[in-house]
């Protein structure tokens, strides 16, 4: 039984085992489903954390090599265990709440930022038949559940009781709302081509990756994704030189770790969405689907990191100009042209 190359079967097998287990201990099937979903969530959370660790290590190494440094080298072989050491350090630190903070909102904010990204991740197909939660309107789902993250950032910024945090939170929210418009508009062309909102169906519909038909939409999506995740060159929400660390200035310990986790999970979700919508998802020759899925996604993530370490930061007004005066009109243009071509070809 080689499950390495058939994740769909492995996934189904795991669920089946869980159901059998549930009936063995005389739980009703319904409870079995719930326990099953719960365990799937825990499994996903673990996968999520591992992915984030790889990304953090990758980011530090890539950054280092782009700047002719070595990066982490001391803990483990070439610093491989550095991230684990960092996580342990963060977990052992005191979870501090400033005196001026709005206690409950301050405590809740990191989770409000993290959970939407995680919820979006479960609807993205990793291989044929491997979707932790198959949602009919998958695309709308990932766009919708991703939105409450902004509120988490605003909560963090406001509840910290610190002007840097407040400014960072406001900038971040303004930026995320502005770039959500081109992000959503750029995706509409893909929906028109595929005729479905189901992410698995969109991947199946791609005889050739949609980046061929929708190159403009792909570029808009990529730029808007970088802005949505508040990363360089769109990182004025946490511009170190003027805002200390923006909305998470007052955070430390595990809560800070959650902000970190959220940033990388959101990056992964947007990259995975880009792969699913424009690059043919799990499809590819020779190798199994999930390998293609992860290879493509990490390819996009490498682009994210490349941007971060090579572009200078945009000014606030340049950022708004790019979003509203360049990307949004281009996305509308793309939509109109796609619609016209589809009607003419009919």
């Amino acid at each position, binding site marked *: 039984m080689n499950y390495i190359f058939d994740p769909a079967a492995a996934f189904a097998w795991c669920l089946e085992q869980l159901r059998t287990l549930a009936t063995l201990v005389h739980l009703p099937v319904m409870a079995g489903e719930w326990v099953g979903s719960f365990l799937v969530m825990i499994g996903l959370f673990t996968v999520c954390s591992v992915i984030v660790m790889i990304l953090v290590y990758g980011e530090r190494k890539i950054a280092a090599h782009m700047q002719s440094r070595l990066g982490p080298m001391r803990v483990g072989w070439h610093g491989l265990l550095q991230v684990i050491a960092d996580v342990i350090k963060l977990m052992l630190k005191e979870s501090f709440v400033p005196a001026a903070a*709005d206690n409950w*909102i301050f405590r809740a904010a990191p989770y409000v930022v993290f959970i939407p990204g995680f919820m979006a991740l479960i609807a993205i197909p990793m291989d044929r038949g491997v979707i932790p939660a198959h949602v009919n309107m998958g695309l709308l789902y990932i766009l919708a559940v991703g939105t409450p993250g*902004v509120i988490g950032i605003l909560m963090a910024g406001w509840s910290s009781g610190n002007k840097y945090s407040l400014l960072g939170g406001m900038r971040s929210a303004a930026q995320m709302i502005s770039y959500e418009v081109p992000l959503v508009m750029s995706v509409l062309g893909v929906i028109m081509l595929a005729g479905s909102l189901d992410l698995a169906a969109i991947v199946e519909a791609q005889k050739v990756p949609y980046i061929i038909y929708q190159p403009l939409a792909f570029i808009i999506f990529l730029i808007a994704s970088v802005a949505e995740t508040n990363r360089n060159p769109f990182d004025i929400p946490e511009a170190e030189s003027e805002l200390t660390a923006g909305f998470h200035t007052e955070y430390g310990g595990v809560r800070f770790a959650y902000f970190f986790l959220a940033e990388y999970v959101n990056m992964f979700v947007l990259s995975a969405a880009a792969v699913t919508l424009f690059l043919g998802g799990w499809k590819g020759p020779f190798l199994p689907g999930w390998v293609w899925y992860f290879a493509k996604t990490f390819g996009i993530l490498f682009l994210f990191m490349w941007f971060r370490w090579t572009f200078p930061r945009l000014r606030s007004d340049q950022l708004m100009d790019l979003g509203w005066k360049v990307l949004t009109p281009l996305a509308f243009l793309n939509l109109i042209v796609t619609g016209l071509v589809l009607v003419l070809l009919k």
Partner: protein
Amino acid sequence: MMTTVSFYLLSALAVVSALFLVTTRNLLHAVLALAVASLAVAGVMLTLNAEFLALVLILVYVGAVVVLGVFAVMLTGHFKKPTLPSSNELKIIAVVVSLALVTLLGGVILGQPAVTGLKEVSLDTVGKLLLTDYVLPFELVSIVLLAALVGSIVIARGKED
């Protein structure tokens, strides 16, 4: 069974957070309560098989309205101490308006025949209906939104000359 339990739990959450929303003195807490209430209502819609409506509700209310609400609170200058004075000068009008609204909405809702076993409506159907039977209301809403957009720009620009 599970759906029924979820339905009542989510409805209770929606009502409680809505009550908190109108009773709290802290404007930002009120806005966050609106987010919780919207999420709870979206959950209620999910238990009724209205997937599309639930997702759009999250996208519009939680993603846009609540965030704009936070901005509005910040712009009013209440963000340092976002508390409201404890009196409402328009008490009587407020009571009349809300009673009228409750009567109107309640009348419409109670006038509907009871529906059991709701079926999932596909997105295709929703889209086709919006562009055929309901095209007039749909376009009307766009014009209202456009007017609001133009109006807000005019207000925001102020008197330059």
